[in-house]
């Protein structure tokens, strides 16, 4: 055993060495040893290398990103590791999870000077423990080709989905396992009210709505655009421009449309916060400022398909040309989400799955 054990340790050491070499090159000979800042994020996080490098150079820092699962998993990890924090900063708590983060008290307040540039509608935490970074609208998308071919008008509001001509055409996600699924549930709650939304779901059910567990299955498995059978899907307002950006060969017009009628979309806002117990508070604050600054904000849309909360940040061309932003998204008060989130999910499961 011992010899095998030693060999195995040696191999692991070699592996770590090999892996170490592959990590991004560190800045060449900085005056002092760079300070490391650990930023914990969800799996969907992405940022351009040069943007991070610019920050690292300016602050003599090394940023370590730490991906910790989906948004809920990352938040749970941050909460459970409170006693000995995994990171200095947590990015990616959205407004559906915000109350959990604030109630558990994992963030310390930071009144960033950049906050003055950001509209009040995004600032959901008056104590500035969680600072808004980006937003994205969860909306119904539809396959334009499908409706063109059949001379059927695409849906224009949530109520349409319960009409006979749209029977069996819609696929949505389970709010208990999917973040856009939960956002869409909240849109229906905001639009129809806490008392009537269940009737709407019962009608949807009657009209043959398909519920799947995750966005990938809905979009790449069931949506007609990608080979499925249902031309209406819950996705993001940013999906049509993304379809243009990731088309092959290039196309001029998005193949999908978005239902943007008043109160038919839910706006997800994502937040960043400095985790209690950080040893590098100044650097953490500098990073938070950086995330709110135009440099970072302008980099987000093409990496994460979310939009800047800082109005000074310009949108990339493809979004400027093809993005439709709803005038008025469904409104659900943050306090109400905090108080009822779990109960609504349970009620939804009772209406839809049983």
């Amino acid at each position, binding site marked *: 055993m011992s010899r095998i054990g030693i060999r195995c340790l040696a191999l692991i050491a070699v592996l770590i060495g090999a892996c170490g070499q592959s990590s991004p090159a560190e800045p060449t000979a900085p005056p002092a040893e760079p300070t490391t800042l650990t930023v914990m994020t969800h799996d969907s996080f992405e940022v351009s290398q040069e943007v991070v490098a610019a920050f690292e150079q300016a602050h003599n820092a090394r940023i370590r990103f730490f991906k910790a699962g989906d948004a809920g998993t990352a938040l749970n990890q941050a909460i459970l590791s409170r006693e000995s924090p995994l990171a200095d900063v947590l990015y990616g708590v959205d407004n559906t999870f915000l109350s959990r983060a604030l109630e558990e008290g994992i963030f310390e307040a930071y009144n960033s000077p950049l906050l003055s540039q950001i509209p009040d509608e995004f600032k959901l935490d008056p104590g500035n423990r969680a600072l808004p970074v980006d937003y994205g609208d969860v909306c119904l998308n539809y*396959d334009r080709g499908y409706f063109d071919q059949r001379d059927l008008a695409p849906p224009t509001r949530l109520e349409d989905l319960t009409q006979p001509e749209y029977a069996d055409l819609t696929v949505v996600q389970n709010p208990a396992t999917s973040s856009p699924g939960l956002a869409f549930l909240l849109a229906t709650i905001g639009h129809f009210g806490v008392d009537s939304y269940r009737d709407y779901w019962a009608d949807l059910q009657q009209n043959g709505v398909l519920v799947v567990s995750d966005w990938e299955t809905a979009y790449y498995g069931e949506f007609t655009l990608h080979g499925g059978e249902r031309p209406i899907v819950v996705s993001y307002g940013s999906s049509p421009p993304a379809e243009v950006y990731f088309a*092959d060969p290039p196309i001029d017009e998005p193949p999908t449309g978005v239902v943007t009628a008043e109160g038919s979309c839910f706006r997800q806002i994502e937040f960043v916060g400095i985790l209690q117990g950080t040893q590098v508070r100044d650097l953490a604050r500098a990073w938070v400022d950086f995330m709110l600054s135009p440099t970072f904000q302008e980099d987000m849309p093409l990496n994460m398909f979310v939009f800047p909360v800082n109005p000074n940040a310009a949108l990339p061309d493809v979004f400027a040309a093809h993005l439709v932003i709803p005038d008025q998204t469904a409104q659900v008060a943050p306090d109400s989400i905090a108080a009822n989130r779990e109960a609504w999910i349970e009620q939804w499961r009772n209406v839809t799955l049983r």
Partner: protein
Amino acid sequence: MAKRDAALAARGGKRNAQGVRLSTALLWIAPLLFLALFYFYPLGTILQTSFARGEAGVGGALLRVFADPSARGALWFTFWQAALSTALTLVIGLPGAYLLARYRFPGKRLLRALTGIPFVLPTLVAAAAFNALLGPSGWVNVALMRLFGLGAPPVAFTQSLAAILVAHVFYNTTIVLRLVGDFWSRLDPRHGAAAQVLGASAFHRFRTVTLPLLAPAVTAAALLVFIFDFTSFGVILVLGGPRFATLEVEIYIQTISLFNLPLAAALSVLQLAATLALTVIYTRLMARLSRPLSLQTREIAQQPLRGRRNKLLAAAILTLLLALLVAPLAALASRSFVRLSPRDAPRQTAPTGFTLDFYRQLGRDPQEGVFFVPPTVAIRNSLAFAGATVVLGLALGLPASWALARDSRSLLSRLLDPLLMLPLGTSAVTLGLGFILALDQPPLNLRASPLLLPLAHTLVAFPFIVRSLTPALRSIQPRLREAATVLGASPTRVLRTVDLPLIGRALLVAASFAFMISLGEFGATSLLARPEYPTVPVAIFRFLSRPGAVNFGQAMALSTILMALTGGGMLAIERFRLAEIGEF
């Protein structure tokens, strides 16, 4: 040295038994230390913390589970779908194991390698594979629509119980093929021949001779398959849909979505208790079933396919395996080479047909993102983790299996045997959080360490390694060892010349399981924080989570690369020969 051992062996009796017991206990040290640090400690920590968050304590939380109809429903569904899936997997797997064990035919190695590939596919990729085969625009539906001029796809497959069952068979048949097939291939065919001479019919021979001899391997495979199906998560969510929930799914929802940690912990305990009960039954059964056999080289046990009846039977089994296990893979791979035009393309003239663009684009990222990795780097990372898992898993699994095989009746072995299976039956969500919570102090501050990944993979691979090795080790006739000892062989020499050659094949099976489990990133790893070193499944997920045809195409291209990597890795392991181990 040799002389003294011979003398000791000659004295035999009580002292020898004591010696065996002592050295058996020594063999347990490393595996137990590993399990204690990386399994029991994190698990205990997270359960304790979770229960402490509730007001009702452990008992109250458990009571709530039984009072909650959805939790009760999940428990019942978990059991019966696992039982049904396991039965189906055996129905498909046993004939396949027979074919692989008893006959030599061209392409056999390739078949073994191909049937192992499903095991490593991430669920989303497996779902894409079934979609490419059976979805509305999949091979089967398109063919049927063309053939019969139908307006709508006739086969609806995903989001159903059938999809869950088929996916479980797809994933786990390789377990039966490997565990049972390996054992079967070395059963002495003369037992059957003797029965035949005595006038037993084929069915009678199978029931009274082969099956009892095979029983240990079949039971071991069935247990592993059952536990995999019992803790099924991704398959249930993605292919079954929200109408189906196993305990593992319920634990995820309670933990992540509803943040009801006490209830989640109670469900985890329930799942563990079920696993433990099963394993205890299994070990009891095993003690009765296993007997020393004279295992044969495969040269003796296998024959070429001859005769019409044999060939027909082989063709039937082969067709079944290919249709269930290989056709979805082929359909998936085809998607990576084809531009799919939507059926209702909006006035666009998208060229459809063969393309290599998705592969070409894999190497670059227009945004030059921090998390982008070229496929070569992702492959290297995946292989490095898999290699570490194989080494670590064998280093820990070998002594544990040895101890179990040598001294299966001692109290230690009877206590520890069921415990080894527990990591497999543990909720990945729970254990993942346990790692975060427990491994936070030096020298065990591994939360951000790349070591955590192979450690977690080893935890899952461990039961497979032990189950692959123990039956082979147990079946070694003690007389062989005794004879070698009496003839003056030192314990090391006995090990090298008797044990190793006899278990060489099982060792390779164990290694390939560890390799597959690591490549497929089972269990808690999907919920662990991963600082750097994106692996192939992580890179696939990065593409799949973005909208756009190019992203999907690239995800399929990378999945095809993962399949090729797995198949190639399995072929390499099959060909691999340890210096001392001949073809056996």
